[in-house]
């Protein structure tokens, strides 16, 4: 018996050899109870999203029974000026949030990685705070801050009126970037930096030509994270947004409150597709970078 059990364990690193045989004892993915659980979980995760996307093409207004294919809801959503404005606002905020978060996050990561200074643990702890503090607490803090401490001027021209929301988004996004970049920096060989300095490079030149290229995959991953965090955020924007600075999630929320139309389905489908494309691009870029390095 024991012999049989031993021989049925597939040799490590060659899954192909065992492909047609009975599943080995540790190949949980090939045993039916676990396959059923994984399948049901994926169904649970995707059924709502797929039905939402499919029914955005439905002719029926009640959007429950399939009646026929149409793209009218997309046309309607694109002609809905306030929805379009909210969508552009969201993209704009996400863009500025990403740029500022990547700069601040990279600086914070380099600071914590490179220097020893008094109060370092306090700084490290405070940097982790925005990641763990509940969103609602940060939301109300931003509400009070922009209402009482630093009122954001009303009626500024377009991208400037989004400043308060962008600042709020950067505050919770940049510590995530710092964490990702710092993980990447731990694999950096400090001797390279010293070599650059010995060869006469200035502090700035060393940073730009030696450290930044090494950080690049972390910076890309961090940028992607900051962008999606900002695009995804509802609660903090809900508290920070003024009447004329509506973002896409806040707009969809208010549309949901009044009536559910397939227009919301169409708009949501567009956002899902945008996110999936961005994720795919990001993963592709991350996969490519190490290969270039090796070559």
């Amino acid at each position, binding site marked *: 018996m024991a012999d049989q*059990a*031993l021989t049925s*364990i597939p040799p490590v690193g060659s899954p192909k050899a065992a492909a047609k045989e009975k599943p080995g004892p*540790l*190949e*949980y*993915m090939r045993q039916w109870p*676990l396959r059923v*659980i994984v399948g049901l979980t994926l169904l*649970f*995760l995707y*059924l*709502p*999203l797929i039905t*939402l996307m499919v029914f955005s093409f439905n002719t029926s207004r009640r*959007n*429950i029974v399939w009646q026929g294919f149409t793209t009218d809801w997309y046309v309607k959503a694109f002609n809905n000026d306030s929805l379009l404005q909210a969508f552009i606002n969201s993209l704009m905020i996400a863009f500025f949030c990403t740029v500022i978060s990547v700069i*601040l*996050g990279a*600086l*914070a990561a*380099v*600071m914590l990685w*490179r*220097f*020893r*200074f008094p109060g370092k643990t306090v700084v490290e702890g*405070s*940097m982790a705070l*925005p990641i763990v*503090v*509940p*969103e*609602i*607490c*940060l939301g*109300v*803090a931003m*509400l*009070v801050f922009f209402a009482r*401490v630093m009122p954001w001027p009303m009626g500024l021209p377009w991208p400037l009126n989004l400043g308060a929301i962008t600042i709020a988004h950067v*505050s919770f996004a*940049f*510590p995530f970037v710092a964490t990702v970049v710092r993980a990447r920096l731990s694999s950096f060989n400090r001797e390279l930096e010293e070599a650059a300095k010995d060869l006469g490079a200035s*502090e700035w030149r060393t940073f730009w030509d030696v450290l930044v290229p090494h950080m690049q995959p972390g910076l890309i991953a961090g940028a992607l994270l900051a962008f999606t965090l900002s695009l*995804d955020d*509802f*609660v903090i924007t809900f*508290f920070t947004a003024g009447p004329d600075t509506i973002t896409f*999630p806040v707009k*969809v929320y208010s549309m*949901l409150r009044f009536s559910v139309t397939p227009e*919301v389905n169409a708009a*949501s489908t567009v*956002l*899902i597709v945008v*996110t*999936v494309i961005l*994720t795919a691009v990001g*993963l592709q870029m991350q996969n490519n970078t190490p290969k270039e390095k090796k070559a």
Partner: protein
Amino acid sequence: MEQTWKQAKAAFAAIAVPPIGWLLFFFLIPLAVIWAYSFGENTGPITIDFTGTFANYGRALEPLYLQIFWKSIIVAGLTTLLCLIVGFPVALAIAFASPKAKAWLLLLIMLPFWTNLLIRTFALIAVLREQGYVNFALEWMWNNASGFMSLVGLQPLGEYEPLTLLYNNTAVIIGLVYVHLPFMVLPLYSALDRMDRSLMEASLDLGAGHLRTIWSVVVPLAAPGIASGILITFIPALGAYLTPDLLGGTDSQMIANVIERQFKRANDWPFGAALSFLLMYLTFIAIAAQAFVQRKAERRG
């Protein structure tokens, strides 16, 4: 080796000032203001005096609000438990899948995580409501069963009553599990993937069954991963606002909804501030508990 800041003061200042300044000005100061407000009193329509009173905290500890806190903890705890029950086998299956299947499964688990929270909640409404797909499927099965029973000469089942799946506490828990499942699967996966498999093989060889092996070998080895999975599912579930707001009924309010109401509708900022600080303290207690468990596990290992 780390450099001391004195060796390169200019470089240190250039690197340290922007992130620390931002954190101080746009994160710590807003929190400090809220904290100060929690000891204040409303003295006019928009004026708040910092009187150093504990009345707001006193009010937060009244049975009505204490009950909401307790309920939020129960709901978040149940959500975490369900995520663990569903997420553990999924993580186990992914960790032991072939490398190619592994990459795809991880991507599939991650993808909903990148989709907007509001859209996911909205999509769930379409599935769960009385005229949604869950009820459609159940009605179809009911009618077929009814037809079958009259075929064999029994009393048919009667009209199908749609289940009320939305706007109650069950809906909130389903919604929270739906949203937080990836939070649980990923840390579990990374713990199980790093585990030494020869120990499992040894246990199976020595005659233990799969369930016994998982319970007495895998679970203790993966304990730190399980603990961090529990933590990062529990914390956002505890402070959830959108899910109870959109999927819950009048009695399924959680603490975040009460905080929102104090700030937006009731306009009682000091009381809202006290509630949000209590929520923060609860979060910190959860983190401290996890750190304690982790340290204990490390010392034992």
